[in-house]
């Protein structure tokens, strides 16, 4: 039980996927203009990340290791993730157009999102068991969600402040992310 708690707290707060590991910065900067799109993106990333980590773990355990083709790890993972995203998207469009309306536009963005592949590879490198690595992926997704929702809250508030001309949107967003990362460093060393 303690180990589960450990993994959860470290994945969400300490080595947060954005602030400590620098994974998934492109969608983080791109999609966080408004809180509604940001939360949509957060949920989509969490969902796909958990799903992808589960499948890549199985793939790794039953295909890569027995056949000693670890070097195919990157290509197999990314292939699975890309196709998975496309299939999920088509299914979503048919089953529930409303949910698709909320999450649909983010799915193509996810294929080029470093966080998904990053978390999958990290969970392999850390040699977690199946349950722990899925939990790790889910909590990293939550960490991403937490970071992007706070960030979009701030960006929406400073949208019409008179920021100097050359600092509008992306540079000021980067500086805000910097200060947020500084704040989250408070959690470092939390887990003994």
């Amino acid at each position, binding site marked *: 039980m303690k180990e589960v708690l450990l993994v959860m707290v470290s994945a969400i707060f300490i080595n947060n996927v954005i602030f400590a590991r620098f994974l998934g910065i492109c969608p983080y900067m791109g999609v966080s203009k408004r*809180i509604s799109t940001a939360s949509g993106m957060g949920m989509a990333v969490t969902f796909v990340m958990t799903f992808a980590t589960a499948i890549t773990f199985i793939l790794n355990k039953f295909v890569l290791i027995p056949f000693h083709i670890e*070097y195919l790890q990157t290509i197999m993972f990314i292939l699975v993730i890309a196709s998975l995203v496309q299939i999920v998207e088509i299914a979503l469009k048919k089953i529930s157009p409303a949910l698709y309306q*909320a999450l*649909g536009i983010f799915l193509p963005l996810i294929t080029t999102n470093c966080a998904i592949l990053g978390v999958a590879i990290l969970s392999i490198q850390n040699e977690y068991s199946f349950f722990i690595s899925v939990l790790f992926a889910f909590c990293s997704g939550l960490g991403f969600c937490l970071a992007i929702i706070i960030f979009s809250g701030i960006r929406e508030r400073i949208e019409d402040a008179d*920021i100097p001309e050359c600092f509008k949107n992306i540079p000021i967003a980067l500086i805000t992310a910097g200060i947020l990362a500084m704040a989250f460093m*408070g959690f*470092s*060393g939390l887990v003994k």
Partner: protein
Amino acid sequence: MENTKLIVSYPPYTKSKDSIEKVMYTVVFALLPAVVAAVYFFGLRALALIFVCSISAIGFEYLINVFRKQEIACFDGSALVTGILLALNLPSNLPYWMAVLGSFVAIVVVKQLFGGLGFNVFNPALAARVFLLISFPVAMTIWPIPFSVDMQTAASPLGILKTEGLKAANSITLWQAFIGNVGGSLGETSALALLLGSVILFWKKYITWIIPVSFVGATLAFTGIFHYMEPLKYASPAFHFTCGGLLLGALFMATDMVTTPVSKRGQLIFGLGCGLLTGIIRLFGGYPEGVSFAILIMNAFVPLLDKWDNYSNGKKWRLTKMRSVIVLTCIGFFSAFLLYMTDNITKEPIKKAIERVKVEALRQIFPFEFSDKDINIAFDKNGKEFFEIKNKDNSLRGIAVETSSDKGYGGEITILVAVSPDGKVFNYNVLSHKETPGLGNKIENEAFKKQFNGKTLDGFNWKVKKDDGFVDELTAATISSRAATDAVKKGLEVISNKYFVENKK
């Protein structure tokens, strides 16, 4: 009568005498007791530091106003308040250039870049303090002792609690901490002065009572629960109340109007959140002082706390036919073939590379030269790898083993220890660590490592000087030094019970 030029604007025409200048200068007035206490305890250097911070804050704001062709608003007191608050957060012996850098970050980056007064999301003084704390960990965590004439330094009560544990921290009486006769940054030591100053703010209603009360309440509750559960391990809430930056943060930092929620409900959640986070970081976190981080994190939640939003619509997506399956498959086919070939070519080099890294490490820690051939890898019962260096007549010249200790400040430290046949340590080499750069990573440099040379397992107390061992620890990195000593000791134990016990037996 016709010629009088009438001014027309929208009602109301009489306005209260309240203004931004009045608010800000009242806050400055409320900070005076803390400033006086600081100067009383830490001498004129404190006054100079406060002066430097305020002047540079106002100066930077003036430059920004001129640069962005805005009308000059740097004397409206907000820059002065930020300057003083920043100064009260710093140790009194901080070099001046760091203080000026801090006020640059506070005024230019955190406040003006976000759009100036009223638009900044993070509390400028606080963000600057955290910036300095992370950038200069050494300078910011050494606090001069009050009344000390030659600037002797010691850790703040919280620092002692974090590194030495409760026993040492209890030596400071609560009353001393309350009036401020204890190590710490300028403003946070004397709780009495802070409370005195805040009375005027409460009376003139410039700060709401909700945030300070909920903030301090949540912190005391959190620390209280843990104190109740394990009185030996965790300090009492009273200790947490008087020591550290809790009061300075709750009364002056967390109640900054611009960066806190407007609605009462939002302020309550903000206060509770700050209190909880402070408790977590103080009891479990890496940094001794949690208030600054807690408030910064809660500042990020403020837009959400009083957010309002409407939902935006999505976009369509399209797909086509069968041909794609075939093409995808053959691409997969070709890439697999390509990768197989590369793996074949690079398989040996990779193995050799890993070998070379190990040999490289070995060569560094053994004082004598040896060729690759002399290395022989032996295994003990539970499969632990040992590197034995053989002489020409394959008698033993040295043994090396990889051990690790997870008591490091940032987590696990793995090292490679080299020992002579008769159990004396030659040297060790740190393979991986997550210690804080600049502090903990000093366990890698020679000065620290030389102490272990020639030491044997029994006959020496394998502890740091603080726990009356022989290793004198790195200043402000006691935990890392203790972890390194522990790892070397473990290496010696493993080697001794493999080789020496067998020989003895």
